[in-house]
């Protein structure tokens, strides 16, 4: 889909330098360039301070651009009012209107966008139901838990039917269950045609949700592709770790011949040996057979999938999270 799809966000050398004082500057985003296709879930994956929020800030008119250009549905992001009509943002931080109830947060938001009364009432009804907040619609949002606030902010964002939905670290700080629930909602929305640009520092989240991912660090895009292709960039790829009490030479020979890459490493420990073999789960039957042929005991067999974390380590030498 990536090849022929129509780009809805076009970023051309976007740059942001924050001025702290006259001689201290932070180059938060250093001239990034990519586009997001209509109907896509696009992810910005990177550690804290990578420049994800700043990038979203520029695209959503909240951060003044230092240099470069970006277009949303063909409209320059400097044309603030026109861009604001097309987009919606769910920020990293709860910014619900605490003077209003959950339902009013939705209806007033729609009112700001000139959505007619009947339409906004109906839409609020639907979205409250979809986000599982129907029972709490008349409560003030002060007492809402993180997960509820997050779902209400998504509902609010959808009230004016934006062309692009921006989600900034939507699941950070949520418990695993709320996180799963939110993932389901994001997928559901996307299936109904919603273009979504999200940021995250969870590699599993990016992997699971996004059609394409830009890996971003220190304000630069290091790699951009589908999760599948990104993981193929990691040298070695998937591997199987075989834990044995001892490793007879004949077994090592057989394993070496099992695939063109063969055994990649052998680690001898006090009472065991760990052999790593290149490849995925398809190799497991062959490995077991070889082990049985050589009458060796197995302590454990572990399939190790390449993750985006591995790619990040490969690209930067650091882990995604601290």
């Amino acid at each position, binding site marked *: 889909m990536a090849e022929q799809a129509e780009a809805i966000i076009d970023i051309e050398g976007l740059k942001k330098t924050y001025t702290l004082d006259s001689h201290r500057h932070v180059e938060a985003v250093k001239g990034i360039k990519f586009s997001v296709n209509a109907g896509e879930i696009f992810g910005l994956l990177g550690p804290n301070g990578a420049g994800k929020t700043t990038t979203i800030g520029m695209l959503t008119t909240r951060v003044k651009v230092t240099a470069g250009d970006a277009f949303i549905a063909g409209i320059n992001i400097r044309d603030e009012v026109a861009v604001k009509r097309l987009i919606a943002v769910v920020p990293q931080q709860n910014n619900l209107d*605490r003077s209003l109830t959950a339902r009013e947060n939705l209806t007033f938001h729609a009112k700001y966008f000139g959505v007619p009364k009947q339409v906004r009432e109906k839409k609020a009804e639907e979205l409250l139901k979809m986000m599982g907040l129907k029972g709490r619609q008349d409560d003030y949002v002060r007492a809402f838990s993180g997960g509820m606030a997050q779902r209400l902010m998504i509902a609010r964002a959808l009230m004016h039917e934006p062309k692009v939905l921006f989600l900034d670290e939507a699941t950070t700080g949520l418990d695993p269950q709320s996180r799963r629930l939110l993932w389901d909602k994001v997928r559901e929305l996307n299936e109904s045609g919603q273009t979504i640009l999200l940021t995250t520092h969870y590699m599993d989240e990016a992997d699971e949700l996004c059609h394409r991912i830009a890996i971003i660090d220190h304000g630069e895009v290091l790699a951009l592709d589908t999760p599948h292709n990104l993981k193929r960039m990691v040298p070695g790829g998937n591997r199987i770790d075989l834990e044995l009490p001892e490793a007879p030479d004949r077994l090592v020979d057989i394993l070496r011949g099992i695939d063109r890459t063969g055994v990649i490493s052998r680690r001898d420990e006090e009472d065991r040996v760990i052999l790593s073999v290149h490849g995925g789960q398809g190799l497991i039957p062959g490995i077991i057979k070889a082990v049985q042929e050589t009458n060796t005991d197995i302590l454990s067999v572990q399939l190790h999938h390449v993750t985006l974390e591995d790619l990040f380590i490969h690209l930067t030498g650091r882990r995604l999270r601290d």
Partner: protein
Amino acid sequence: MKTFVALLQRDVTVLIRDLPEFVMRIAMQPFLFVFVFGYVLPSIGQVKSSYANLLLPGILAASMMMAGVQGTAIPLSQDFGAIKEIEDRLMAPIRISMVVLEKIVMGTLQAWIAGGLVFPLAWAIMRSNLSLHVTSFSYLFLYLFLVGLASAATGITLGTIISPFKIPLMFATIIIPMIFLGATYYPWHALSNVVWLQTIILINPMVYAAEGFRSVLTPGIPHIRMLFTILGLFAAVIILSGIGLRGFIKRAYS
């Protein structure tokens, strides 16, 4: 335009929801002033009953200023506080300057309500000590209009400069001095013995508000000429709105 009206409706809804609090906040100060200075003190002979006359324009100005500043500065500094509640309104399809204008309209509205409360309060409590001569209703309304705007503009300026937890400090160090040094409880001409003070306080918009109201409500008391008070209030509205707008925009973007 639709967006602007919707923003106003949001603020009005929130205001009406806390109506008792709003009325208390707005009415308490004028009530106490009218009651103590216009009724209690004259009744026990501590001040001449004519003091009520001198005082009323000042109370009117101070009440409006207080309401206009509170009605803008407090919500604004909260909006821009840690939670950034205002973000959703900044994302509305409208220019940021219009969001500022909406805040000024809200503040002005509250100042008018406060001003509107002073008259019935004064009439109810100290009418026996009062002798008002409204020289011109059009000028009275012009002053009400300008003082409302000036108070809201002051509030916008303060609200964008001051962080939420410094609000009590703002009242102690800015609003209270503005009111006490604003020719509120004494006519400006009476300061002729303290020329340095008389000169310095000319930067205080309260002076033009109180003196302006004197010129239309109690013309018998010496007051600054209308032309100057009108110009002073105009200047205050323009300068403070300008500073407030810049401060707001600076805060609205990063």
